[in-house]
């Protein structure tokens, strides 16, 4: 079958690979009908996440049709049209039964790597380096899905592939940031990043009752989507006045909840950006936390900051003093999608959450390398390149 493989830093190739097979009783094989690029893939592509191996198949945000199931599968069946959560959940361990499914104890075959890097491993994830288990990703004609009963969700009739595919990753990630960030009625929320994740976080904050939501980015076409599709306010960070502007728009308080949806490759007009750029180039720092710093410094006293952006290692000039002295709550996670996806699919079906507009570029998988180039450089207004294998 055809698959889009990472072959080195900023290199992708379509290769002919073997088809996956059932390896465990809980497995299924899914014929991929749609698979999307995500900001996390850019971190993998650019070599920011350790543990990538030339020949790895990328892709973790996807949907498709079940074509085979293992002997232990009881809920899902061949023929089901499903969206699959990008992280894997066994459904049995303490983390899975407590809604912290991306922390599953039983889905990562390479636990020693995460233990070495982070003190404990995360659960397994599709196409996302050896750290999350080294699983083959979804940018292929078929993908093996362990624990299909807990990880795959039926797509409601009337919801298109372009709408449903984002319920795999971007929508639950954004929802989690607003939910676990503690957004409640009357809040003012600021979101850094107007990619798929930031837009979905903004929409979630609105649905959870926030009275004002401000999304920060610099790309005009994304900011336009935020205003016209999501219905939130926007702030262009290229003005260089983000903190002052936020203060003005929040009655002098700062946002109650600050959600960071940018990640380790943040760009900025702030002077610390140059510092981070040099330090990451010299390998003295692995990640650039520019937006995290700004979120922490902007949040109101006693507010909360949720880091949705992915970080892989260590950062510098972390404003711990602001966290401490302003009494902030700082939280983060890889997405715990399983607890949200059924509810989110219902909301997508009901028209409460728009997602289809994120699929700005739908193309065959053969054009994967070009699609990623567009997504990486944000060319032609690309918000997510989406592939039909």
């Amino acid at each position, binding site marked *: *079958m055809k*698959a889009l*493989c990472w*072959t080195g830093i900023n290199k992708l*190739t379509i*290769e002919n*690979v*073997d*088809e*996956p*097979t059932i*390896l*465990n*009783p*809980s497995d299924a094989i899914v014929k991929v009908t749609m698979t999307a690029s995500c900001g996390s893939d850019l971190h993998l592509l650019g070599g920011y996440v350790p*543990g*990538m*191996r*030339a*020949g*790895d*198949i990328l892709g973790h945000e996807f949907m498709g049709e079940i074509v085979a199931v293992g002997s*232990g599968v009881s809920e899902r069946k061949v023929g089901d049209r499903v969206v699959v959560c990008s992280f894997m959940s*066994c*459904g*049995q*361990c*303490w983390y899975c*039964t407590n809604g912290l499914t991306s922390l599953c*104890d*039983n*889905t*990562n*075959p*390479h*636990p*020693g*790597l995460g*233990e*070495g890097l982070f*003190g*404990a*491993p995360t659960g*397994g994830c599709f196409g996302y380096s*050896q750290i999350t*288990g*080294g*699983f*083959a990703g979804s940018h*292929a004609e078929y993908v*093996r899905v*362990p*624990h299909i009963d807990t990880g795959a969700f039926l797509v409601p009739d009337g919801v298109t592939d372009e709408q449903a595919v984002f319920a795999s990753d971007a929508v639950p990630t954004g929802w989690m940031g607003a939910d676990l960030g503690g957004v409640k009625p009357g809040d003012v929320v600021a979101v850094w990043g107007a990619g798929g994740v930031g837009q979905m976080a903004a929409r979630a904050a609105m649905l959870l009752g926030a009275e004002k939501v401000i999304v920060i980015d610099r790309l005009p076409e994304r900011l336009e989507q935020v205003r016209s599709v999501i219905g939130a306010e926007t702030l262009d960070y290229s003005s260089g006045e983000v903190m002052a502007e936020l203060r003005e728009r929040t009655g002098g308080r700062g946002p109650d909840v600050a959600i960071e949806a940018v990640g380790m490759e943040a760009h900025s007009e702030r002077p610390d950006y140059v510092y981070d750029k040099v330090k990451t180039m010299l390998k003295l720092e692995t990640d650039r936390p520019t937006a995290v710093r700004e979120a922490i410094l902007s949040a109101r006293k006693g507010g909360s900051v949720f880091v949705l952006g992915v970080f892989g290692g260590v950062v510098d000039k972390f404003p711990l003093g602001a966290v401490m002295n302003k009494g902030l709550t700082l939280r983060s996670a890889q997405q715990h999608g399983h607890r949200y996806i059924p509810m989110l699919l219902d909301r997508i079906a009901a028209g409460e959450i728009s997602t289809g507009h994120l699929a700005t570029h739908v193309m065959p998988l053969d054009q994967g390398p070009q699609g990623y180039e567009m997504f990486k450089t944000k060319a032609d207004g690309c918000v997510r390149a989406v592939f039909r294998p």
Partner: protein
Amino acid sequence: MSKRTAAALIAAGTAAASVAVVARRRSTDAAGSPDSNESRWRVVTIARPEAEVIVDGALPAPLIELADLIDVRTSAAPGDRGTELAARIRPNSAAGDHGDRVGQLRAALRRSKQLLETGEVATNEPQPEGHRPATPAGLLVDALARRSPEKGIL
């Protein structure tokens, strides 16, 4: 010697001593020599009652192979979290030619937990993959991934 210099020297001494400890630990680990604390108890919490972890006195299957080498104990985990299954390399047991005994114990404990909680062991071999060139960096990633079930803090 003024009080202040004495304090500074003591502080410096403590720092140097802790650096030395860290350095020593690093070098034994890096050399792959036996874990400095081979007989530490290594514990996993399994979301199952004790009676399902040790059934009629029998160890979970992955630990049976190591039965001659290890001590095993269980206790109820706090907060209804199931059972804490602990095992250690028996102190003063003859080294024999078992290779990385701690690594084998880690892997066996992790497999035991997965089998008891889910009935299977997470794997991705064999799976589709593109061309894997034998570059030094690539081979290093392969080796780290392969040995990962035996590595970590556990």
